[in-house]
């Protein structure tokens, strides 16, 4: 590979591996680069100027920076299912065969049809959505289609993502975020202390800003010092170094989320770390700001710090002839880099008056002419900068023009305070630093380096050293103070005196081309317009103009915009403040967020001990909350509805078996259990005899029904309570809280045995016969085991608990055995049931039967009804208080109307009453809802449609003209109120 196409690649230098050439494709063209390049550096090396088109106006854009703050070079990488849109070319590591394309352009980035929108730019200012496309009325849908086609950046991938993503939890004593000079100095001091250290950095190798400059430490290049320190950390054994790892969120209790890209042969593409630290040092550096002037968006306009970054990191010269535009001394640092890269410098344009330019800066300028108190008035060049027009700050027309293909802008520095600002502590504007600075306000959290506002290398190193000392002291280690030896450090110029207008463009025409947010095409004129319309609060301004709302999240534009707002309104920046910082610090892929929780692992699922047996029996399994539960067991050629119908008729006609393992099951031991249950449940339970069960209703404190279940007294001081599957967890928490907090004086021991016991309900007229074939040591005759009775016995070789309880309305027994022997119970029941054609039935058939019997379930216990609404009012004790009784009585007195649970049939005897339908009374006129349907079926037993419903007022019960209306289903079904239970109202079958 010759590298001939890499016209801007320097002959030597850079941290790339020139022995590892790579080929890649960009917009269909083949290019070459080297291992260690980013896509951006490789494109620059190959002389690619236009990388993308801006979001709104489709203006040509080139690479501006060398980091996550990049606003312009947004590309799509990969093809097919591997395609990832909206990546910053500055963050994409170059790999062999990489395929990347520009976005937001057609047919090509160099000849984009969308550029015609630029001609309409005066019409597309801030808030144009609210001012245009309004007429003629009704035409919006046409405009919307066109706008949608033009909107958006990259295109989302279709198909499954082939990459693997991982999560990783970690804990450490000290987490250092940022492996620049301050972070490395801190890590160096902490190494060998015995503390567990983690160090993370967004780049592929440590060093941070040291990689981008010629600064020295201890007489050696800063980048080399960084590598040496990192190697010693690696070998120390107590420090974990994460590269390509960006800390994206600092949450409560020092939990930091870090998004890491894994390269090379790793089977995992990205890893999301959740790191819990005892102490955190935030050494995240600072980001250089651009300047706002007319024509500041052309390809070739770059941050001044990017010059050194591309030279030192990638061995790339970013142009051929440059102009430097600065408002502070640090902008002069790039002059040495430009010279070393062989780039001519035409002039330095300094916004500041001559007196404010530092002497050290002048020394760096040497013979290069400085135009003080001046600004760039315009630029020209279509696909690449060609000329720069310069005038004094007092001029209205340009006085000089310079040929240049590179304009290095230096607008000051913004410390990267995002992680702290995520915590809700606003950063404060420091006029001397011309930057927002954050102050950590919580223990075990330190800022260091440029992130803390230190802009000189020596100060950065010292602050990192000191932050490490703080960490040592706070964690109880020796923190004997030692100063970092600053005499061996030679660094670049700090910003010094920063001055000059935030936006130097004068006049509407120029300010329309003075870009503040390059990605979203927000200009100084847009800010002015928004303020004039009343959007002068920064949060409103942000949303009205979309400043800072691109994928760069305003890293270059936010502070610039605030400064311009200050100039326009005359208010101080400190008063204006900044918008709310929200995590993540940089975009995180959905894949990383999801990690391993995809496909069948998307959700946690729970299986009953009979799960495999259900599958073997042909069950269709469905999620019921976290559980996988059998819906029904269709036979060959059977529809779901037919299977459910068959199962119901089988149970009603002979016998069936259903899985009851998901019920919440709790044991309560102790002499005060009866008293406890009387306090917790609405009905009386303390009088329950040993060996008996009772249906029980539990209320919330506001008197609304919370859950229902059965209470069994297994022995004098041993009780068993069930809760519904959906409320098992919340009931257990409720009972635990009552015992631990409200009534700790009660001698009650509560134990969750839900997982220990697996149960089957055997239901139907032949249930007793089947039971007799399953259990031993238990008499199963009606007198020996009456309805709502309980016995202990044996099922084969195993202990068994037998409850005679019925939810289906049939003669039924629930048999429970330890969960790890559940299969034995299943086989025993199926074998004993074979002579009676026993069939397994699922929750659909169970639900049908409970509706036929009008037993309340989730549809009725919906968090809105008190016991009386559901026909359970007589169960509530009247002679003593219980949980919920006070407000139950209070609401009972306050209510104007008494709701009622009713049964319905369809008048035509055929049409299924729609589920979730509202009830109206045709007689009353209008269509005001007076109730709703809670459960509905076509009853196989009765051969007709029936439903349960709650009427808002019992008086409507007598209406002859009720109608169930479902707008969603487009149905209206006339219904009549009917008595409940619909089937076997006397309960003879379950008491047989």
């Amino acid at each position, binding site marked *: 590979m010759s590298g001939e196409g890499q016209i801007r690649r320097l002959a030597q230098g850079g941290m790339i591996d020139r022995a590892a050439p790579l080929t890649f494709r960009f917009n269909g063209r083949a290019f070459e680069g080297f291992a260690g390049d980013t896509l951006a550096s490789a494109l620059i090396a190959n002389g690619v100027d236009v990388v993308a088109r801006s979001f709104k106006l489709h203006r040509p854009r080139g690479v501006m920076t060398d980091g996550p703050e990049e606003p312009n070079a947004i590309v799509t990488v990969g093809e097919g299912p591997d395609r990832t849109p909206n990546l910053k070319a500055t963050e994409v590591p170059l790999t062999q065969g990489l395929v990347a394309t520009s976005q937001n352009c057609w047919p090509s980035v160099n000849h984009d049809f969308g550029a015609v929108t630029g001609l309409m730019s005066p019409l597309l200012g801030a808030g144009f959505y609210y001012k245009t496309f309004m007429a003629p009325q009704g035409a919006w849908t046409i405009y919307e289609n066109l706008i949608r086609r033009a909107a958006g950046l990259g295109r989302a991938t279709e198909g499954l993502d082939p990459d693997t993503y991982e999560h990783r*939890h970690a804990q450490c004593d000290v987490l250092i975020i940022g492996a620049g000079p301050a972070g490395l100095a801190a890590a160096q001091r902490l190494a060998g202390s015995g503390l567990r250290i983690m160090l993370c950095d967004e780049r592929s190798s440590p060093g941070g800003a040291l990689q981008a400059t010629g600064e020295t430490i201890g007489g050696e290049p800063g980048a080399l010092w960084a590598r040496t320190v990192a190697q010693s950390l690696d070998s120390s054994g107590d420090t974990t170094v994460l590269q390509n790892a960006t800390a994206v969120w600092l949450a409560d209790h020092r939990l930091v989320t870090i998004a890491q890209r894994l390269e090379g042969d790793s089977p995992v593409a990205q890893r999301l770390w959740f790191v819990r630290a005892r102490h955190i040092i935030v050494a995240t550096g600072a980001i250089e700001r651009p300047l706002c002037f007319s024509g500041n968006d052309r390809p070739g306009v770059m941050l001044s710090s990017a010059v050194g970054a591309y030279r030192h990191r990638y061995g790339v010269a970013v142009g051929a002839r440059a102009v430097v535009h600065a408002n502070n001394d640090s902008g002069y640092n790039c002059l040495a880099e430009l010279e070393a890269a062989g780039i001519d410098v035409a002039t330095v344009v300094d916004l500041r008056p001559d007196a404010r330019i530092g002497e050290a800066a002048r020394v760096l300028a040497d013979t290069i002419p400085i135009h003080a108190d001046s600004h760039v008035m315009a630029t020209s060049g279509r696909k690449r900068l060609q000329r720069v027009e310069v005038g004094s700050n007092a001029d209205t027309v340009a006085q000089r023009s310079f040929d240049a293909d590179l304009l290095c802008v230096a607008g000051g520095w913004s410390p990267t305070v995002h992680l702290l600002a995520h915590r809700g502590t606003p950063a404060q504007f420091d006029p001397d630093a011309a930057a927002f600075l954050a102050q950590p306000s919580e223990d075990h959290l330190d800022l260091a380096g440029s992130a803390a506002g230190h802009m000189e290398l020596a100060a950065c190193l010292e602050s990192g050293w000191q932050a490490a000392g703080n960490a040592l002291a706070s964690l109880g280690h020796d923190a004997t103070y030692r100063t970092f030896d600053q005499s061996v450090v030679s660094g670049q110029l700090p910003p010094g005196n920063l001055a000059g207008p935030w936006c130097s463009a004068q006049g509407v025409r120029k300010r329309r081309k003075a870009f503040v947010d390059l990605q979203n095409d927000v200009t100084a004129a847009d800010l002015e317009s928004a303020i004039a319309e009343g959007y002068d609060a920064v949060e409103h301004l942000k949303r009205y103009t979309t400043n800072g709302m691109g994928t760069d999240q305003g890293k270059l534009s936010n502070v610039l915009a605030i400064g311009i707002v200050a100039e326009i309104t005359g208010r101080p920046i400190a008063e204006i403040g900044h918008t709310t910082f929200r995590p993540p610090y940089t975009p995180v892929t959905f894949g990383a967020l999801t990690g391993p929780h995809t496909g069948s*692992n998307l959700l946690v699922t729970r*299986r009953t001990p009979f799960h495999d047996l259900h599958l073997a029996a042909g069950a269709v399994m469905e999620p019921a909350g976290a559980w996988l539960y059998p819906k029904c067991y269709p036979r060959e050629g059977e529809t779901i509805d037919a299977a459910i119908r068959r199962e119901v008729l089988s149970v009603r006609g002979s016998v069936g078996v259903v899985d009851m393992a998901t019920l919440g099951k709790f*044991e309560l031991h102790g002499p005060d259990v009866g008293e406890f249950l009387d306090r917790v449940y609405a009905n009386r339970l303390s009088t329950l005899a040993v060996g008996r069960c009772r249906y029980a209703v539990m209320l919330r404190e506001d008197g609304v029904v919370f859950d229902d279940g059965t209470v069994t007294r297994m022995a004098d001081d041993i009780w068993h309570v069930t809760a519904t599957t959906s409320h098992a967890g919340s009931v257990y928490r409720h009972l635990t809280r009552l015992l631990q907090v409200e009534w700790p004086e009660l001698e009650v*021991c509560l134990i969750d045995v839900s*997982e220990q016991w697996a149960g089957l309900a055997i239901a139907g007229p032949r249930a007793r016969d089947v039971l007799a074939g399953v259990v031993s040591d238990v008499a199963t005759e009606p007198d020996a085991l009456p309805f709502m009775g309980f016995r202990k016995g044996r099922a084969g070789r195993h202990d068994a608990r037998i409850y005679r309880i019925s939810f289906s309305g049939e003669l039924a027994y629930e048999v429970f055995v330890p*969960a790890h022997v559940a299969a034995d119970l299943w086989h025993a029941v199926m074998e004993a049931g074979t002579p009676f054609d026993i069939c397994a039935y699922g929750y659909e058939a169970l639900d049908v039967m409970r509706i036929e019997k009008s037993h309340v379930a989730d549809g009725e216990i919906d968090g809105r009804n008190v016991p009386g609404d559901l026909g359970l009012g007589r169960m509530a004790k009247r002679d003593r208080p219980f949980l919920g009784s006070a407000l139950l009585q209070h609401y009972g007195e306050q209510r104007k109307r008494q709701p009622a649970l009713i049964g319905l049939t369809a008048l035509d005897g055929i049409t299924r009453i729609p589920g979730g339908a509202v009830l109206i009374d045709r007689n009353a006129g209008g269509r005001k809802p007076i109730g709703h349907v809670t459960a509905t079926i076509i009853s196989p037993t009765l051969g007709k449609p029936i439903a349960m419903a709650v009427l808002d007022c019992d008086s409507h019960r007598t209406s002859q003209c009720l109608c169930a209306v479902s707008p969603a289903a487009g149905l209206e079904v006339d219904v009549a109120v009917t008595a409940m239970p619909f089937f076997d109202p006397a309960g003879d079958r379950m008491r047989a």
Partner: protein
Amino acid sequence: MITLQETTGFTAQRLVGVATDKDSELAGMAWPDGVGMASHDIDRSILMLGPGTCLVLDRSGGPDRVGAGVAKVTVEESGAWRLFMLEGEGTSDLIGQLSPADLHGTVDACIATHAGGHPVIILPRGADRFELLVVRSYAESLLALLAPALSHA
């Protein structure tokens, strides 16, 4: 290589209301040092899950009712759990993919935590060796979540 092996045939009993003073013991085993700690002998483990509450595991399927006379309440839990041994180089990292538990310096600990949302008790049993006591109904879901991580290990 990391291996995952299930232990079957064990018994588990929950004991509530036990007094764990230093002079007492349970079936010849010393009590753990406190809540969140465990004591082990060849086949048995006592896991202190809360004040006065422990879980007694016997991997040999040992006798029932070890808590008789020692605990106020003894409840059988052999059916409530599944037990797995995870061992091999990198096991800590593997567990770290799913669980926020800090495994550093956790000799004789019993760590009640979650792994990817599945309730689990982690028992460190040596270098790169951990037992996972998983609530039964969650076990298959956890195994499915572990499978890709094991294949990369």
